[in-house]
């Protein structure tokens, strides 16, 4: 960029602009470290999402189980007329245990109960017990 009218100024301007850009681009080490941290934070590390989903699902199931148990028990517990208090408590406890067992079974189940028939239709042939 030199020669004809305005060429010398343009060349000088270009040189100064380049120096300015290079000077502005010189940042301290903290900037580069922060930038690298920002990049790492935005990467989809393989498996991370799957674990996040599993954790979220587990947390949801646990919360739901606790909510169900707490709702079933109620603030003071049902009192059945004519039934001794100890028996009523034992009954409630049995109900809670039964509910917890059901929740555990539901959590352990690979396919939700409502979809078992469909799953059997699709995947029944691959079931080792079906062989």
């Amino acid at each position, binding site marked *: 960029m030199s020669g004809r009218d305005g060429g010398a100024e*343009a060349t000088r*301007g270009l040189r100064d602009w380049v120096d300015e850009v290079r000077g502005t681009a010189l940042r301290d080490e903290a900037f580069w470290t922060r930038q690298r941290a920002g990049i790492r934070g935005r*990467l989809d590390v393989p498996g991370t999402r799957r674990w996040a989903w599993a954790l979220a699902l587990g947390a949801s199931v646990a919360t739901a189980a606790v909510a169900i148990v707490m709702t079933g028990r109620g603030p003071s517990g049902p009192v059945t007329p004519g039934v001794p208090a100890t028996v009523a408590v034992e009954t409630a406890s049995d109900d809670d245990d039964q509910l917890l067992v059901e929740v555990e079974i539901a959590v352990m189940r690979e396919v939700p109960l409502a979809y078992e028939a469909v799953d059997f239709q699709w995947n029944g042939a691959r079931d080792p017990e079906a062989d």
Partner: protein
Amino acid sequence: MARDTSPAIGIDAMTETGLDAAAFDGLVRGHQKRLYRLLLAMTRDPDEADQLTQETFVRAFRHRDAFRGEAAAGTWLTRIAINLVRDRSRSGAWRFWRTLFRRDGEAAVEAEQVPDGAPDPERQVLARRDAEAVGRAVLRLPVRQRAAFTLRYVEEMTLEEIAASMGCEVGTVKAHLARATAAVRREVGHERP
């Protein structure tokens, strides 16, 4: 001076089965300064350049399967960075906000750049005016011309290197450079009384 002298760190840092964190960190370290400088020259906005630099590496990682190893990792990263600037320039919202804040941002940069106790104030003023005119002209260039111009003058790349980075022929690079240079010269000429 501005050429990348960092050790050659390949894209194979991003393994197919998982992230080798240390290796990828090395890739970032090896290229982040050069990419930031390029993006700063193309956007004239330090925050924008920072964001785009980060986005370049994130996009490179996400699309690492597309990297065939035919070009150097640096060339591939440069191409991603240029594409990001192009995508950003197409965004109407981005143009609007950039136009809105450009004047303040330039004033801040200019205030930082004026050195104290300069021996020839008049010459300093003229030089600054020319440099500003060049910066303005570069910002107004179409993205491909801007990329070619910046890679040539800031990164001091050869025509062949620019062509590889932009994914085009050397002849196309020459055409971009010729148009860009003419536009810059016109801008500086208009600034002069």
